[in-house]
């Protein structure tokens, strides 16, 4: 570690004395990666950092669609067998060749790296029965069952040299053996402070535009904004909505806003006869009735939430994945704002004078989450549902929500796999062993479960897309969850730089180019 810091200091010195020739980039991140092991912990900041240094067999592009990376092509010989042709001439950062052996070892290493992980990569390799090395550039993967999501899952598994198969996370965290095939090589890392990378000149794709990249961590939003305004960094991610205008008005700073894959939604207790925080006159749980759920959806003015509370940083949602994603159903409309219809539905459901509800939300997990919750509370009160708002820190909120202590909650889910089953499964599948672990409203529909399960086992793309759309239609008709809006991500950068934004919100140095290129 000390050597790494020293190396960084020396590198910094060299780069400043080298003058204008060196093209360096400094990026202000909103959260620190917690490990340099790309297979240790499934969490945004870690995955984003890993993508600078490592590749998968396939990678997700800026719209999270699967693209060839270290594998150039693949075919399925039967429902359980996939054969991958590897890219020729790819070199690891240590100079060794990338071959089929490395693929087998990397997939095997996930088990080792999952030790002590708070959220491991094991689910992504759970379908894999065996990995066979056919020849140095061919790999055959057998799955336990038809695995339609194999490519999406493999896009999350970083490829490392076979020699690292038995190297534990701790070694990588100390800055040793952080070796991938990606556009940048690892130089140094200090947790919660900075990561330094340098260009990989042997990269298999187009070389990156930067000799050296420094990621610095500013968890405090004001500090992040100050860093770009003072010129300490060239670019920041996660621009706070309150500062968007200031930055846009500054002539030498550009702001880029791009829709994201994270949907904000409401979970409603629709399973229990009596709910702790939603009570009609007779003490029963009104949220069990589909009309009531529809009334709540119609009572919410999504346009206003996005415009007024989010400063335009979002898109109203009528389903759980954004347009263009695998499984998006174009025929599902966003519920309009219609308070009169909402009142009518409430009356039809037997609640002409509404009912009382306490709405729980987090206050430090999502952008403006407590403000959004308060606005929703007011909108619901307007149609007669007497709503109280309670907002809690995420550290308390999620534990209690999982224990079903609440009646109506707000959450946000990112479509990490790039296709619909990645959110439909956790949020809506009937809760039970192996399914619906994030289904805090306990929605349960046999038709929905059947469609989703069938989609998972269908390798044919067209048929699978249709099944996912069916599942989405069923869940949205029943309002298993109420979608609110898709969050947008914003970046601010000096006008000498330009960025190709990604829907997953990852800030990748490779996507940053000097302006005008």
């Amino acid at each position, binding site marked *: 570690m000390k050597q790494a810091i020293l190396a960084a200091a020396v590198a910094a010195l060299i780069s400043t004395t080298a003058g204008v020739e060196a093209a360096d980039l400094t990026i202000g991140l909103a959260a620190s990666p917690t490990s340099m092991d790309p297979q240790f912990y499934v969490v945004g900041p870690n995955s984003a950092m890993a993508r600078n240094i490592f590749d998968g067999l396939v990678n997700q592009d800026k719209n999270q669609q699967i693209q060839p990376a270290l594998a150039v092509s693949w075919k399925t010989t039967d429902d359980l067998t996939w054969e991958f042709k590897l890219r020729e001439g790819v070199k690891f950062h240590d100079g060794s060749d990338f071959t089929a052996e490395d693929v087998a070892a990397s997939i095997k290493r996930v088990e080792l790296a999952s030790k002590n992980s708070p959220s491991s990569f094991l689910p992504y390799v759970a379908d894999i029965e065996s990995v066979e090395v056919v020849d140095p550039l061919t790999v055959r993967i057998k799955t336990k069952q038809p695995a339609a999501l194999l490519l999406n899952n493999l896009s999350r598994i970083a490829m490392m040299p076979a020699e690292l198969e038995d190297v534990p996370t701790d070694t990588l965290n100390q800055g040793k053996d952080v070796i991938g095939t990606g556009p940048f090589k690892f130089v140094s890392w200090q947790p*919660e402070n900075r990561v330094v990378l340098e260009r990989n000149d042997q990269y298999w794709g187009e070389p990156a535009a930067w000799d050296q990249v420094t990621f610095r961590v500013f968890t405090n939003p004001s500090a992040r904004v100050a860093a770009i305004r003072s010129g300490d960094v060239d670019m920041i991610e996660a621009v706070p909505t309150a500062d968007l205008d200031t930055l846009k008005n500054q002539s030498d700073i550009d702001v880029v806003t791009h829709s994201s894959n994270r949907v904000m939604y409401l979970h409603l207790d629709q399973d229990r006869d009596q709910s702790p925080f939603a009570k009609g006159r007779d003490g029963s749980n009104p949220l069990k009735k589909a009309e009531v759920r529809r009334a709540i959806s119609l009572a919410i003015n999504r346009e206003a939430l996005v415009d007024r509370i989010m400063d335009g940083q979002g898109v109203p949602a009528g389903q759980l994945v954004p347009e263009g994603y695998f499984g998006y159903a174009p025929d599902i409309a966003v519920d309009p704002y219609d308070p009169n219809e909402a009142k009518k539905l409430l009356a039809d459901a037997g609640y002409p004078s509404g009912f009382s509800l306490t709405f729980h939300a987090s206050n430090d997990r999502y952008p403006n989450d407590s403000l959004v919750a308060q606005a929703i509370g007011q909108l619901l009160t307007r149609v007669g549902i007497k709503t109280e708002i309670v907002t809690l820190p995420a550290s308390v909120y999620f534990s209690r929500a999982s224990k079903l202590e609440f009646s109506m909650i707000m959450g946000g889910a990112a479509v990490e796999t790039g296709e619909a089953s990645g959110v439909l499964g956790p949020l809506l599948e009937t809760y039970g062993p192996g399914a619906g672990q994030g289904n805090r409203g306990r929605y349960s529909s046999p038709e929905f479960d059947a469609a989703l399960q069938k989609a998972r086992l269908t390798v044919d793309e067209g048929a699978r897309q249709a099944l996912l759309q069916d599942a989405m239609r069923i869940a949205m008709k029943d309002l298993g969850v109420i979608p609110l809006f898709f969050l947008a991500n914003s970046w601010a950068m000096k006008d000498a730089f330009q960025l190709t934004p990604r829907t997953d919100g990852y800030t990748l140095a490779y996507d940053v180019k000097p302006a005008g290129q």
Partner: protein
Amino acid sequence: MTAFLLRRLSQTVITLLVMSVLVFVGIYMVGNPIDILISASATPAERQQIITAMGLDLPVWQQYWIFLKNALAGDLGNSFVYNQPAIRLILSRMPATLELAFSAFVIALLIGIPLGLYAGLKPRAVGSRGVMVFSILGFSLPTFWIGLMMILVFSVYLGWLPASGRGQTVNVLGVPLSILTLDGLSHLVLPALNLALFKISLVIRLTRAGVIECMQMDYVRFARAKGVPEARIVLLHVLKNTLIPLITVIGLELGSLIAFAVVTETIFAWPGMGKLIIDAIGVLDRPLILAYLLMTVVMFTIINLIVDICYSLADPRVRLGEDSRS
């Protein structure tokens, strides 16, 4: 002296025990870290495996017992999210925090004592009134706001100093220090001044009050009557007597400087312990929180010890071994 040290040591051990129980139970009641850390797509089997691996399936007293046994063997556990020994993470960040806190401390004394002395000796002068107004502002304006304003003025508009982070470091006896390089100093000035502001005000007020009180004492009048030069009266008699209460308060304030550094570290992206602990609390990274708080207790104890020793040096009437003082 030995008896005094022994008694202090046993007090510290008891404090550490009580502290660890409180923190352990406190965090246990707040929430389950698994709900925050694990991804929604994990199966119950994976979830269970992680819970077992982290020892979260045991009753809380049993978890505490395991923690205690390991702690006595010098192992405070691995951070959940970093998968590194918590103590290593904290120690690697400690030099940055201590450097910041001590710089702020020195600034507070160097600015506070002379200004306080001046305000005490000439309470009616216009300058003294100015000093007192400044100290009221220092007391009442929130640290984070002043920090942001400092960044806006000195970094954004004037561009004189960097807005954030720690500068280049050099290793002194294996400890990376940034105060010895020009780049490091330029990074240190704003956060240290920001952190010091409140303490400067405090030192000014304490010194001023002490000086005004001492100046009316008989020994000062006698000294004057004897023809002792004014400078000698002020520096030797007045200042030394003023220092006695000052040392007690300032010593405790050094501890709070280290604790308050959290706010300043967050605003200036200073890579100290504070930033680490804030995020650890957010995800209920229990081993890291515990290790941090226990380290803080140890640090406070050491500071208090040093204060008591200084106190006995400044005031010969104080004897450390005597029961009446503790």
